[in-house]
């Protein structure tokens, strides 16, 4: 008997079909990968399973053979469905401990002792092999990866082992070795008989962890529960995009020695002594494991963090620390990794989201014409393949990957020539990644400079001219040329990490 059986589910939003007669089955003890381009309906399907959306028409949902009524999160939970949503659904102001407790319960029944609760939460985390998430810290102060961990732990730690665990892009912001920890956790759950539905845009993960694959395209399932072994990378891409993948090249810019972004001896909370120079035409990558300070680096350079030492210059102009506006004036922009929280204006239309850094106006009276504004963003929407490509669409109704594209489009619209960007393609589908790479390459090609923080080492090796590996707040390896491969980055960061453990921590 399959653990999860989805039969004929459809869902419309206004005139738009998000799901069109979707069916698939997942068995206990398997990782079932759910794939599809941005906006193909993956998250919508998951929200239907979770009881957040009521599907149209008469679909059915069966867990372990028992029919689950739609539209009730409580029923879904009682039938043993657990979820890690794309936006994690955690409460920012509360600590990790409280977030874990909200899914299940506190240890104390009448009297809450924070010490006891925190110790309990640490214990839960430790059993799942997670030791570096400070449980007493409010979520808002944790990195995206630590938050993702918290969400996953919350899902699996409430009320016994679930029948089905659904993860919507849990690895979007995790780097290779953090992912490995997550994978071993998922494998352990799988071996204990949990059916895991796993959504991702990183196709190589499918071969690392997947057993079966279902692919959605435009709300329809085009691949229904095929074993991974019968597929390869190329056929997956073809199934997702509905066409053959094409090669993508850009002309390399003429090398230049003109420094654009200069960072000297920068230090903050985790970053200890960071010096980087990015020249005109260059894309420089910054990678590191969780806790290496890499998450703090770009905000610090941008002036949005707490700088304790060092200096940043953009085209020779020294930036005022603590003043992102000064950085923007100097022509530097920052695309934060946490686009949900820091990137977008949720209930604004796409047009206003794209123009916010450089709002257009007409005449000396600064009249802001909405019509012109909308017209001016159309080219950005289409060139990044945002779906729907309508300037009036509300940001929060877009699929996760499409929200990313909108925030990146803002960078282009502002005409910035020095860009700090975190995980530019996290959550973006294989068909749309080239558009984002092309945009970055275009900025570099026109004499701009890009400093890229990424957790996707393949991406780093592919689009960066140089990659700097951070560990314990210090740059420890510089990779370029033929030495720059996904494996060399991984090796360098792991080695740095273990060296670090041996010398600094022990």
């Amino acid at each position, binding site marked *: 008997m399959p653990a999860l059986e989805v039969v004929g589910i459809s869902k419309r939003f206004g005139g738009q079909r998000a799901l069109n007669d979707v069916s698939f089955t997942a068995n206990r003890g398997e990782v079932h990968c759910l794939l599809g381009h941005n906006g193909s309906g993956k998250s919508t399907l998951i929200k239907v399973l979770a009881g957040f959306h009521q599907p149209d028409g008469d679909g059915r949902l069966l867990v372990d053979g028992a029919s689950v009524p739609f539209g009730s999160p409580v029923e879904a939970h009682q039938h043993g469905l657990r979820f890690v949503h794309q936006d994690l659904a955690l409460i920012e102001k509360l600590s990790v401990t409280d977030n874990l407790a909200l899914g299940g319960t506190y240890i104390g029944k009448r009297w809450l002792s924070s010490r006891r609760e925190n110790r309990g939460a640490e214990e839960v985390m430790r059993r799942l092999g997670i030791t570096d998430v400070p449980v007493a810290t409010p979520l808002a102060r944790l990195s995206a990866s630590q938050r993702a961990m918290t969400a996953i732990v919350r899902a699996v730690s409430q009320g016994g082992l679930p029948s089905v665990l659904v993860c919507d892009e849990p690895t979007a912001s995790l780097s290779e070795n953090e992912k490995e920890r997550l994978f071993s956790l998922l494998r352990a759950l799988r071996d204990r008989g949990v059916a895991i539905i796993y959504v991702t845009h990183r196709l190589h993960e499918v071969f690392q962890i997947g057993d079966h694959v279902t692919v959605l395209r435009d709300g329809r399932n085009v691949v229904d529960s095929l074993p991974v072994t019968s597929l390869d990378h190329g056929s*997956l891409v073809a199934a997702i995009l509905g066409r053959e993948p094409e090669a993508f090249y850009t002309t390399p810019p003429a090398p230049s020695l003109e420094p654009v972004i200069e960072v000297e001896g920068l230090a903050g909370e985790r970053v200890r002594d960071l010096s980087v*120079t990015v020249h005109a035409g260059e894309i420089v990558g910054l990678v590191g494991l969780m806790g290496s300070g890499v998450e703090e680096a770009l905000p610090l350079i941008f002036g949005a963090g707490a700088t304790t030492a060092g200096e940043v210059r953009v085209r020779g102009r020294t930036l005022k620390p603590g003043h992102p506006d000064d950085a923007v004036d100097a022509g530097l922009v*920052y695309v934060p990794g946490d686009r949900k929280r820091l990137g977008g204006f949720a209930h604004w239309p796409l047009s206003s989201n794209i123009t916010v850094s450089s709002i257009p106006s007409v005449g000396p009276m600064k009249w802001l014409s909405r019509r012109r504004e909308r017209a001016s963003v159309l080219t950005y929407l289409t060139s990044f393949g945002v779906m729907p490509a309508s300037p009036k669409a509300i940001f929060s109704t877009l699929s996760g990957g499409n929200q990313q594209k909108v925030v990146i489009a803002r960078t282009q619209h502002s005409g910035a020539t020095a860009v700090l960007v975190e995980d530019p393609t996290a959550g973006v589908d294989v068909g749309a990644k080239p558009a984002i790479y092309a945009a970055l390459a275009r900025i570099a090609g026109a004499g701009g400079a890009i400093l890229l923080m990424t957790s996707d080492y393949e991406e780093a090796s592919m689009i960066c001219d140089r990659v700097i590996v951070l560990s314990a707040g210090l740059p420890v390896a510089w990779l370029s040329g033929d030495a720059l491969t996904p494996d060399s980055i991984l090796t360098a960061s792991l080695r740095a990490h273990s060296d670090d453990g041996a010398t600094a921590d022990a």
Partner: protein
Amino acid sequence: MLEHSLSTEASRRAIPPADSASASTTEPLQPDVRPERRRGAEVQWSAYLGIVIFVLIVTTFSIWIPDLFLTTSNWQSIAQTGAITAILAVGLLIPLSAGAYDLSCAQCLGFTSLVCSWLMIQGPRLSVPVAIAITLLVGLVVGLLNGFLVAFLRLDSFIATLGSTSLLLAGCILIANSEYLGPFPSDFASLTSGRFLGVPTICLYLAALGLLVWYVLEHTPLGRRIQATGANAEAARLAGLRTRRLIFGSLVASAVVASIAGILYASVIGTTNQNDGPPYLLPAFTAAFLGATQLKPGTFNVGGTVIAVYLLGTGVQGLQLIGGQIWIVTAFNGAALLVAVSSAQISERLRGDQAVSRMLRRFSSRSEHPDRLEA
């Protein structure tokens, strides 16, 4: 130490079809044309509910008490009474749009009306223009104080302006000492006396200020930046907006508008007293929030606010004319706000949009909820 061979790497920029890149960089992914959202059938009916109710109220009273309600003097009275509240509320929209409360705006109205009176008839007995100029400066100082507390000391705007309200109240008592100030020189009264095409002069001030705030807030980059600050302050800061300066400026603007309202109030009423300000607080906030459910749901907007003021004002006036007791009038105000906000939320839920709910959530609980229904 980082300057490695640049030239050898330049060729790396050739991106292989590794993670299966495809070159569809210029066309949207899906060929099928999807209809644009929020059009036609999806018009939010509750956004115009205010206008409908306004018409209903007018019709009801016109039929019920035509000889009392359908008179020029009645309309002028409604227009005049509403104008002060509307001016105050329109000023209040500015900090609200930036995500800051200005609880002191009503007390600022009361305080500046006393300051102006005192300057003209008790203290230095200044001429009217000089007294007005100084009063506006006083309003500016109040705004600077609020702005300083909120934007630079980073106090919560709710607390900071609550504190400055008390300070202003103390100032009022000091000046008025429980007495009425007045009457004022005739050229002061003539600021707001008379009519223009049958419309009381004070409404022209409202029209001018309303247009100005509408223009700036809803149709300039500056206004957009103010709204960005209110919508997501951290995202706005990272987009390079000077959010602290915007909040500072918005609080200054609302205090200056409140002092204009104070001057006009003194001129209309003819006497001033230490208790004049506070009664405006609730109506101004009610109008701003009710207004945010109208015309552009989820956004504080001038049009909706003015509609809200006059909707409430007309209803109240009608109720008073049929001999309604004070409590009916007060209950009407509360009920109108609740009906407007809940109908906006219900109609949003039906459409699956959340603009008003989000705005209110931002202002009510002041804590973040997990927004589970969004991708």
